[in-house]
């Protein structure tokens, strides 16, 4: 079976092909369908570039990118994205923010008017599943940072994407809220069997959530190590305090230290 997301020997530069600054060089990565992959690396190693290539927002000058068996030549549309900043629209309520992707992506776009009640129900269910029941009528600025980030996750999932791309989505949150949201993501992944690519610099986060962790080198980025995380699922937060967990984090940390040099 070929991988669901496959980047093969990919190089990408900003500021015009080979002449510009290389963001990533000769990067190969393959993520299976339904897998939870985490990409870690030193800051500025081109992790976000990886996201943009995998979703078809940018195209490499060398190498190939395939998603769901198709070469990527335009935005992939089967992906949902969430970033460190929740980027919610302040003039829309939480619920209206969730409906935004459905106003854009087909086939929902043409059916929105007819099936509006169904979509609203779906959005409410999604909000309930991340612990935001009855918060739909509030404006984003009436919500706490963690609640905004949950909303942002819901927005990424509302059109039932097959691929979820997360770019340091918990980076700006306090430690407790972050761990809470780890569990939210863990449960969403388990319930929906969705493929997730999480870009992060938090090793504990990567090990707790992922099936496989990829370590990137400093710029120009490529994959220097790959580690399968065999911890049994469902994982409880307690697992992060076990020796086995700590050992994996240590091992990955050694890779990062080497990658920074």
């Amino acid at each position, binding site marked *: 079976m070929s991988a669901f997301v496959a980047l093969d020997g990919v190089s990408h530069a900003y500021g015009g092909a080979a002449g510009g600054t290389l963001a990533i060089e000769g990067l190969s990565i393959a993520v299976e369908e339904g897998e939870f992959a985490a990409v870690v690396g030193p800051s500025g190693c081109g992790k976000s570039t990886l996201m*943009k290539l995998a*979703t*078809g*927002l940018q195209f490499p000058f060398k190498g190939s990118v395939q998603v769901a068996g198709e070469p990527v030549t*335009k*935005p*992939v*549309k089967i*992906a949902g*994205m*969430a*970033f460190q*900043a929740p*980027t919610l*629209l*302040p*003039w829309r309520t939480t619920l209206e923010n969730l409906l*935004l*992707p459905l*106003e*854009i*992506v*087909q086939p929902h776009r043409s059916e929105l008017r007819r099936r509006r009640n169904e979509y609203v129900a779906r959005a409410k269910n999604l909000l309930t599943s991340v612990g935001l029941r009855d918060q739909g009528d509030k*404006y984003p*600025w009436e919500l706490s940072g963690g609640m905004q980030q949950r909303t942002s996750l819901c*927005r*990424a999932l509302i*059109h039932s994407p097959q691929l979820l*791309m997360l770019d340091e989505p918990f980076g700006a949150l306090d430690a407790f809220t972050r761990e809470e949201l780890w569990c939210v993501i863990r449960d969403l992944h388990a319930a929906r069997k969705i493929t997730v690519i999480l870009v992060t610099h938090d090793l504990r986060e990567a090990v707790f959530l992922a099936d496989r962790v990829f370590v990137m080198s400093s710029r120009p980025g490529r994959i220097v190590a790959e580690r399968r995380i065999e911890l049994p699922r469902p994982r409880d937060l307690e697992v992060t305090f076990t020796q086995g967990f700590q050992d994996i984090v240590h091992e990955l940390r050694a890779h990062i230290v080497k990658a920074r040099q």
Partner: protein
Amino acid sequence: MTRTAVLIRLSPWLFTVALLAVWEGAVRFFKIPMFFLPPPTAVAQAFIEYSGPLARNSWVTLETTLIGFALAVGFGLLLGLLVGWSRAIYAGLYPLMIGFNAIPKVAVVPILVLWFGIGFIPAVLTAFLISFFPIVVNVATGLATIEPELEDVLKALGASKFDIMQKVGIPRTLPYFFGSLKVAITLAFVGSVISESVASNNGIGNLMLQAQAQFQVPLIFAGLVALAIEGIAMYAAMAMLERRMTGWAQRSGFAQS
């Protein structure tokens, strides 16, 4: 109401009365002649005496200003969206607009008179020319500051540039747009009065010019007062519109503390 709240409510009136008192006192104390600086009481007297012509001409000025302002809103909005839409258009038009904005509009009035004759049209056009610039700049700024991440989220879903403009760009530009209206309406008054005092037979600008020719100095000042009243009223109207349309953008307590 607490004492501070009462004070804040009253303070605009207190300051105005204090200014008038200082003015009146200074004119009397230094024995400043009437044709140089009339005291507020003389201005008020002129205001009442000439209330008919003042009202008539104020109305003309207001009409001129509002038509020029409406043109500026339409044109400024369109141009702002265009400039914000594409970097190439932005790069091409910006130096031209800066240059155009730097030209004192009083210097343009003779040309307008040459084309349209004296009167109503040059005044409307001057009001328009002087007030569209802040609208363009603000609308373009609103569009230019869309968060790139949000753009990515929507693009990855297959959103066209037009979709992004419609769903994100225009709504987020509205606070900038309505904010710029307060500046633009004030400038529009400046424009129409400039043109009226150079090339018109009507309006407050013209009335003040005639009063000057006849040395009716209190009437000149009464004209200024009439303009100030109109200006404040229009500004207040725009500020109210802004609050109603974009309440979501004005939740900061910064200015209240």
